[in-house]
């Protein structure tokens, strides 16, 4: 131990053998990790003063131990939904797009609504992992892994819709720039093609980011499985009559996935560098993807779509909806999984609630600006499009959107709501509904009454519309449940870095930041320490 650190206590802590220093006073403030009024006092990022080993045990335990009792029935339900989606998609492809409620006036409806909805949800993950990483927001470590996973699953759900919404799905490969003898290329002027590139880039980078971040943790899982194999000759078998041990499979699978990670300093160095590079690449992507998705509408000449406000408005909306979805997933998870509340504290929830409040108001501002410009611009077609949104046949959709997106987050002005998981959960449901309706309102109400009143129509969804959308939730949740079951749900390595004991110089005063800070001044410290310290102590 002494090789790790000259100080015995610190060395033990670094080795994960002992907890952080226990101070005379318990955790300040509410004790549940929520923020407190005194800016000088900072709530801990991990509660219950966990040691490194405990962190590893808890997080690896989610995949190593049998799943909680609720897991299988819930999985059964969502997997059935996912299967139903497949059935309805097959029906759609076999029969024709006409099984949806679309028509010649409203040529896009739930298909593209769902697409934009899911793509928007996919934004929170990368925002948390990339932008918050670059901004050195330590609290992100508890939620980034699951948020990134959610991103990827949302992108998968989203990518389904442009694929199946075309009339001839079997010809969708025409979208790919494949050289051919007729020299026919895709139309590079079309925003739909930009979508293809933007989403595939985003999906790829998000996946790489997620996967690369997981490599150290996958190696941990591999090593633990391997250790268990070495320790005892028997263990749970794959099936009673199959002489293959689960740990062997785990060791093999995680071994494959962890691509030879040995946690050498060089590995860590490369890892950190690559992580930073990917964070740098992802950050503009967070902004660009939904901007490009918004170009589908903004570059058109449809009143209600042809708006320059769309890119920032869509990005804000995406973050808004994305965080709501993160919360929708994590609040039940932290309730249902043992010890998860230690990592996802009220502070995390509160931070995210604040982001929802902020982005919700940006979105609300955008709604009002649209109306202002529609009036100020003097173009009556434009003005009508917006009047029709609010007072036309789809008024209920518009006002659902307004109440869910603009009004419901306003409860987050109160501390009570921000720190009440139930309240946050309920608001998140509203926000998710509201964001779906936002896309529905933009798409359907703009199309159904465009320029020529002679060609006005209505859109009425069909069972296939509904089932494919509901089924996409099934796919999403199925993938997320599998993720919870087999992959490290938290970034263990990063999480340990925000534990107090990760700062070797903070002798026994991890919780007493104010004092620690003063002490730091006395001692003077090297750059790394100062850096670490300022993260812990900056308010």
């Amino acid at each position: 131990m002494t090789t790790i650190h000259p100080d015995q206590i610190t060395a033990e802590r670094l080795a994960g053998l002992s907890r952080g220093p226990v101070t005379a006073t318990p955790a300040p403030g509410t004790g549940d990790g929520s923020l407190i009024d005194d800016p000088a006092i900072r709530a801990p990022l991990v509660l219950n003063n966990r040691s490194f080993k405990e962190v590893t045990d808890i997080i690896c335990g989610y995949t190593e131990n049998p799943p909680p009792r609720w897991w299988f029935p819930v999985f059964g339900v969502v997997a059935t939904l996912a299967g139903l989606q497949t059935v309805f998609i097959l029906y759609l492809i076999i029969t024709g797009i006409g099984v949806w409620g679309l028509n010649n006036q409203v040529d896009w409806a739930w298909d593209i609504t769902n697409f934009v909805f899911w793509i928007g949800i996919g934004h929170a993950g990368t925002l948390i992992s990339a932008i918050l990483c670059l901004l050195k927001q330590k609290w992100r470590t508890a939620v980034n892994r699951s948020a990134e996973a959610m991103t990827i699953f949302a992108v998968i759900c989203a990518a389904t819709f442009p694929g199946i919404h075309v009339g001839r799905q079997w010809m969708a490969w025409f979208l790919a720039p494949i050289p051919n003898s007729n020299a026919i290329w895709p139309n590079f002027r079309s925003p739909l093609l930009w979508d293809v590139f933007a989403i595939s880039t985003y999906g790829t980078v998000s996946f790489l980011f997620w996967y690369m971040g997981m490599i150290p943790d996958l190696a941990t899982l591999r090593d633990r499985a391997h250790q268990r194999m070495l320790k005892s000759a028997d263990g749970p078998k794959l099936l009673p009559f199959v002489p293959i041990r689960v740990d062997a499979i785990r060791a093999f699978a995680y071994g494959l996935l962890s691509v030879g990670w040995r946690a050498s300093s060089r590995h860590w160095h490369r890892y950190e560098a690559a992580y930073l590079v990917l964070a740098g690449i992802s950050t503009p992507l967070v902004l660009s993807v939904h901007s490009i998705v918004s170009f589908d509408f903004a570059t058109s000449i449809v009143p209600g779509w042809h708006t320059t406000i769309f890119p920032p408005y869509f990005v804000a909306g995406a973050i808004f909806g994305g965080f709501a979805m993160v919360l929708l997933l994590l609040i039940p998870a932290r309730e249902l999984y043992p010890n998860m509340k230690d990592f996802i504290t009220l502070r995390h929830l509160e931070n995210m609630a604040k982001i929802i409040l902020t982005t919700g108001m940006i979105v609300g501002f955008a709604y009002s600006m649209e109306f202002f410009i529609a009036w100020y611009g003097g173009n009556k077609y434009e003005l009508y499009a917006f009047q029709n949104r609010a007072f036309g046949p789809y008024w209920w959709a518009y006002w659902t959107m307004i109440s869910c997106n603009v009004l419901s987050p306003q409860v987050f002005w109160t501390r009570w709501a921000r720190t009440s998981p139930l309240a946050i959960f309920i608001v998140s449901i509203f926000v998710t509904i509201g964001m779906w309706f936002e896309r529905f309102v933009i798409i359907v109400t703009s199309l159904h009454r465009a320029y020529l009143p002679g060609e006005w129509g209505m859109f009425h969804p069909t069972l296939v519309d509904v089932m494919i959308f509901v089924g996409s939730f099934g796919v999403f949740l199925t993938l997320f449940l599998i993720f919870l079951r087999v992959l490290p749900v938290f970034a263990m390595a990063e999480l340990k870095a925000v534990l107090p004991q990760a700062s070797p110089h903070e002798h026994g005063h991890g919780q007493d930041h104010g004092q620690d800070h003063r002490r730091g001044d006395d001692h003077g410290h090297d750059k790394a320490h100062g850096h670490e310290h300022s993260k812990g102590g900056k308010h």
Partner: protein
Amino acid sequence: MSIIDQCPSTAENSKSPEKRRASKADLAQRDRVLNTTGGVGGAKVWRSADEYADTREFRDFVEREFPSGASELLESSRRGFLQVMGASLALAGAATMPGCRQPDHKILPYSKEVPEEIVPGKPLFYATSTTIPGGGAEGLLIETHEGRPTKVEGNPLHSVNRGKSSIWAQSSVLDLYDPDRPGDPVFNNPVRGKVSASWDDFRQWANDTFAKFDSTQGAGLAIVAQKKSSPSREFIRGEMLTRWPKMTWVSYDAVDSDAERAGVIAAFGEQVRQVLSLDKAKVVLSLDRDFLNGSTSGEPHALVNARNFAATRRVTGKDDPMSRFYMVESAFSITGAQADHRMRLAPSQIPAFAVMLAKELLNGVTGNAAGLLEAVRAVTVPAGNGIDAKFVSVCAEDLRQAKSGAVVLAGPTQPAAVHALCHAINAALGNVGTVVKFIPASREESADSSAQLKDLAQNLAANQIDTLVCLNCNPVYNAPPDLFGTGGFAAAYAKVKNTVSYNLGLTETGDASTWALNATHDLESWGDTQGADDGIAPIQPMIAPLFDGSLSDLELLTLIISDNRADAKPDGYQIVRTAWKALLGEKDFDKNWRRSLQDGVVPGTARDGDKAEVNFASVAKQMPGLSAFIAGAKVPTKDALDVVFRVGHLGDGRFSNNAWLQELPDTGTRNVWDNPAVVSPQTAKAMGIEPESDTAKFPEGVVVTLAVNGRSIEIPVWILPGIADNTVLLTVGYGRRVAGRVGDGVGFDVFPLRNAGQRMAQGATLAKTSRGFPVSSTQNHWWLEGRTALVRAVDRPAFQKFADETVEAEHEIYGRHKETLNFAERLGELAHTPPNVSAYENPYNLGKVGPDKANLDAAGKPPAYSTGQQWGMTIDLSTCTGCNACTIACQAENNIPVVGKKEVAKGREMTWIRVDRYFTGDDLDNPGDMLHQPVACVHCENAPCEVVCPVNATIHGPEGINYMTYNRCIGTRYCANNCPYKVRRFNFFDYGVTKFNGDYYGRDIVEKVSPERGGVTGSNVHNKLNVNLIPPRLRQKLDEISRMQKNPNVTVRSRGVMEKCSYCIQRINAARIECKVNDLRDSQGNPVIPDAFLQTACQQACPSESIVFGDILNLTSAVSKLRNGTRSYALLGFLNTRPRTSYLVRVRNPNPALVDEARKHAWENPFHHGAEHEGAEHGGAEHGKAETPHALVTPRARRDGESSLSLRVLSSPVGAPISGGIGHGAHA
């Protein structure tokens, strides 16, 4: 041809092995010879080093023709050959298992005796003709592909058509290929029930049945024949009556107007037919006569009227004369939509109007007419009938001023006395011989259908009829019930011993007959027709009867009077020739015959018409009756409604199984696949029977019980703005029970309500039921929403004042140079479009400089669309009546599928050219105008659809046409979303290829949608199997017979692809080839298609010639003259889409005496744009000021020349009363 025979089976028994080997050697020898001597100037010619070296391997290679191994079979043993063949057969067997089978292909090769004139792939056109419902005929020109008629056009040489055609003529080709056409006669065996029989069986039966009439002189035989003006049939009828003088012949027309005929007798003492020359008319007054529309009024001269009337409405310059048209009508017809002044009036009140008018108009007449004036004065017109006396007097004054240029027309709803009075008024106006002419009516036309039916009914009641033949008619369905006692005609018919029905499709009559004979279509048989102007035209077959053995009507009648019916093979060709010889004389007969077959008309038979003397005294005698009528005709109330029976697209029901006509939107309501009872919004509101809102998924009409003439039916109600209050508009021809898969049970049968000869009834009652019925409509929205710049209309005084005035736009619009705005453009947005200068140069903007080739770009290329031929179209809103002929012509030409009622309800109709219909004004009950605007793809030069298509499926051609590449389209539908005109149509299902659900009517929604309101839930009678559950490739494909109609030059689109108007690109390309073959060049020597060389399908059909197509760069072409004229504007042009189709402003010609001050004020400044803010109620008192409704932006707006921020794109050009401005629908 290869010397080596590749087929072992033929190799075995063809030539001897020696001979084959010898020829192989010959080949090698010949190759060498060729190689050494065949070159230029004797030099050796070689293609490769091997060949040059002429190695043995190379020679072998050449000799083998195919690479090594390919012809190895030749060398194999018999056993080996059998092995290989066995394996191949086994594989082939496996390949033919279901699922991996190639579809069977049937080809019809012209392997021998190719007719000299046939070039495979090139259509031939033959002239023929057909009769139309309501009398008269149309001369047609049929496009045939390899002997298969695919498209019907009007015959340019025919005096009625002049190249145009009605929707009935256009759609008749679909009747030919109706898959429900019975293929064999059906005999109702008294013992075994209905059995399929043959024509030979019928011959045998006919021999037994008709022989006895020789002894009775025809007594006991009755023939009920559809009225048809055919000299040959008339000839045979004469022969029959000669042989069997006691035979009964009923000239039957289900929707006859007895009143019109009686009016003519009263006025002229004999049957004459009125022929209008509306091109000479200056002032027209129509009393409920829909003279422009053959398909809703049975107007045999509608095509002529539309053409001539349009000629008086088409103005190009400010000094062009223009007629003025007053309409007094109960419905809102397309003719009424053309009116400058329109009064809606219940049909029972129109006689009062006629009398009021006559009193004014005849005032001061002398001579014979003075007696009439006395009689007219004696007629008392009760007050409070809602007739605007000012309208009457102004109208009378206008008519009097126009003298011989004025005409008053009475419609079929009016009693005989009104018709007679109108004839007298015309005579008094002095227009007989100019606008109105007369020709003697044919026997068939003047036959009184009702009276003859009445006689027949008496004979039937007395059991005096032994054999009854129904020829091309369906009296069991549509005979008036009042003549036949209890059970109507059907009961009387059932009692007749022998009944024969001869009809093209399935009919109720056929179903009830002893013999149901399958008729031939006019395109399959010989015959002739006589048009409304007496012009005779031949009917010649385009194709052999699709069902072997069936006889034409002429042949059937000939068979009936043959001596030896069992062996009779009557020949239609000879029958017509015989009849014509009697008619035209023997001299030069064959020459004339061939000439008339070639031209489709018999020259010299069409008549111009003569004068006819009105017997004023006789008309005066009608007046007491009219007085009694007027006294009895109380103003209809909601307890005693007026009912109007009108003909719809289905005629008297004979076109029920024609899906094109079923899906053709009705005028005004735009309903398809149904005939709801139509009432005015006020009436519906008063009675609580308003239809469901237009935002419902399947909007429903309230089902009511409608009782009139002592009988009642149940029918849903729909509303139409602008029809007379407390008047119910009923459309006949629907509700067929036995019509085929398309027509069965579609709509509601209103014939049971109607008495013989009746077109209008009084005293109807209407009781609401608790049920609803879904009604599909292609356009549920009534208003323009203040967007008057879309359909621009202007009053003539304003047009005359400003037509020649152009202004420079205040700013450069869209780029490089300033625009000169014509009159039409000043009426719309473009005059107010803010400067919209892009940072980038739009290459398409260069094209605005026109054909100036000096204007080359940096690369030395001329600007886009400034060279070659650039196609464009103009649509004249002044003359377009909204008759839908363009829609159906396009459907026939471009293989556009029918989608069915349910799909239309969902908004998925496929028509490439649709007619948008709008009402103006702020009163839903009495709208100002009904505006029609045909909209098809406008082929934008700067097309929004092209930019957004991710796969380049829709691109721009060098001639300015927006191409749609079906092969490339994957169906993202982005183009349709971004199309501001919404003209793109998506194949949501396999509409074009499979039979869609086998049920066009959507019976599942009809029966399922409102179970709580009495519908039948979950009916599986009609939907045995949901076709959606069957994979498309296993679905029932179109019948072979239905596929025969398809135009081979237009792709039949699969599901999942977008489609739209192509400007009939197949016609352009055919014309291009034709012109290149003939080496037609312009003055610069470039290949050119001359102007008017080709017509698009819609243009060719348009009866009023409102659609013009051609090269817009050719300054002498008709289209460029119109496009560059003062009335031309681009629809939504301010979007910089640069459409190639431009619209011509509608010019109205109101009488200043009937126009209020506000409207007159607008004549001074038609470009005023505050109208939609002030609305009509403010009467334009604030004209010239209050330009800015938004005080916030006033300073800026002023600086920008009041165009940038105060852009009011939805201005009302003439201060036309606009309902509530934009957003009206939201608040309504």
